[in-house]
């Protein structure tokens, strides 16, 4: 039943986007169709993103820029608020259940948020054709990352580095599957900080959040257990995206008629997605997300090259 529901939802999603794309080239479409279509599309993106375990804005920016008539500047500004709102609504629960650690979030956030400001300025300064080419390459790369990266639930780590020991980073959480508390710490923190500066720039530049990059770095490089990596990444976005979101807001690159339906649609959709998560098949959903990313990435690439 869930399989049918999902097939129905994905075909509905495709047909909605095609209808929207056709309407984009059709003058005379009533103005209210756009925010309504955006609300509906982002609701579906929210469901798919929650089921696939990805952040909504990584799907939002390429899909909305492919099918809606809005300028890329405003879509990126909205993407940051989408990521920010999702993070703010998810982080409290994760922090309260110790699945996110403030002692890990704080040092990474300083680096990532400062560099996201640089990214935001780059995004607002570079020509849009270049940005679309870069976004196309990035989204295609993220799809590849989803195909090939193998996260580890409990990574093997060595002795924590001096900085991680000095900052006393580590914690414990209750693991229901084993009925035990899992104690964890991290290593290779300096290398992680360097990578987070790059992640911050990309997040600010394209408005796509950064969970897709945060989680592998936290899990595979720093050695945080997967649940801690996901929770910490989600809490981290609330800070990283705040700095970049302010740059876009101050430059006037946030249009409420685009941003607010998007935020509401994704938030409601992701809540629905979480509710049906237990009965869905994550693997097939993940494949659909990968296909959507590949499609949106290639479309953005072609648009940047002037062929789309």
């Amino acid at each position, binding site marked *: 039943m869930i399989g049918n529901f999902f097939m129905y939802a994905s075909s509905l999603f495709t047909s909605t986007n095609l209808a929207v794309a056709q309407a984009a080239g059709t003058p005379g479409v009533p103005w209210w169709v756009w925010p309504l279509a955006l609300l509906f599309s982002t609701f579906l993106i929210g469901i798919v993103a929650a089921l696939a375990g990805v952040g909504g804005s990584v799907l939002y920016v390429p899909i909305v820029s492919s099918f809606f008539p809005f300028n890329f500047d405003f879509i990126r500004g909205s993407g940051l608020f989408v990521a920010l709102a999702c993070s703010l609504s998810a982080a409290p629960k994760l922090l309260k259940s110790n699945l996110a650690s403030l002692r890990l979030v704080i040092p990474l956030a300083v680096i990532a948020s400062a560099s996201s400001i640089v990214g935001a300025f780059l995004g607002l300064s570079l020509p849009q054709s270049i940005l679309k080419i870069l976004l196309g390459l990035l989204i295609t790369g993220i799809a590849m990352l989803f195909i090939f990266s193998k996260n580890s639930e409990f990574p093997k780590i060595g002795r924590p580095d001096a900085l991680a020991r000095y900052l006393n*980073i580590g914690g414990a959480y209750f693991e229901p599957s084993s009925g035990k508390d899992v104690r964890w710490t991290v290593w290779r923190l300096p290398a992680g900080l360097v990578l987070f500066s790059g992640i911050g720039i990309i997040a600010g530049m394209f408005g796509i959040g950064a969970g897709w990059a945060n989680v592998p770095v936290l899990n595979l490089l720093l050695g945080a257990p997967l649940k801690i990596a996901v929770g910490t990444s989600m809490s981290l976005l609330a800070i990283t995206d705040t700095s970049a979101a302010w740059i876009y807001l101050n430059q006037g690159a946030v249009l*409420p*008629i685009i941003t607010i339906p998007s935020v509401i649609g994704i938030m409601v959709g992701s809540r629905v997605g979480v509710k049906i998560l237990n009965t869905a098949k994550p693997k097939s959903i993940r494949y659909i997300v990968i296909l959507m990313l590949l499609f949106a990435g290639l479309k953005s690439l072609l648009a940047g090259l002037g062929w789309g």
Partner: protein
Amino acid sequence: MSSQTPIPSNNLRSAMSDQTNIDVEVSPEQNKYANILLFCSWAGIIVMVITFLIYMAGFLDPIVKPSDMPLYWGMSVHQYSQATNAPIGWDWLGLITHADYLNLVGLAFLGVVSVLGYLSLLVTYLRKKDFPYATMVGLEIIIIVLAASGVFHIAE
């Protein structure tokens, strides 16, 4: 090398023995920070929804009516700014009697939530004399405030 499993191996145990303050319980400052995020983000979202409905209903004399937005939303931010005389930085605060700029109140509030949480963390870390974390939290507040202040501009 050791795995971070429910039953820590000897290596990990020795690695962790360097850390004396690891608790299974959520720290009070983390709990407080989570509560601030929870209540403030919902407050921001509720304000955002209400102001958006006001805008869509055509109340409070918007400067750019929703029905006129298709003329502008395809423009770049610089073109939009010139075409609608849209303010840069915090000048929009002077226009919040108009529904379209009133919408920015809820969005801006979402951008303040993390700073509120961080201010509570700063007080806690200073009280606990945890100076490395107090410094990083203070630095983060400065970064966000600078980003929000509008002191950074993009040359057109």
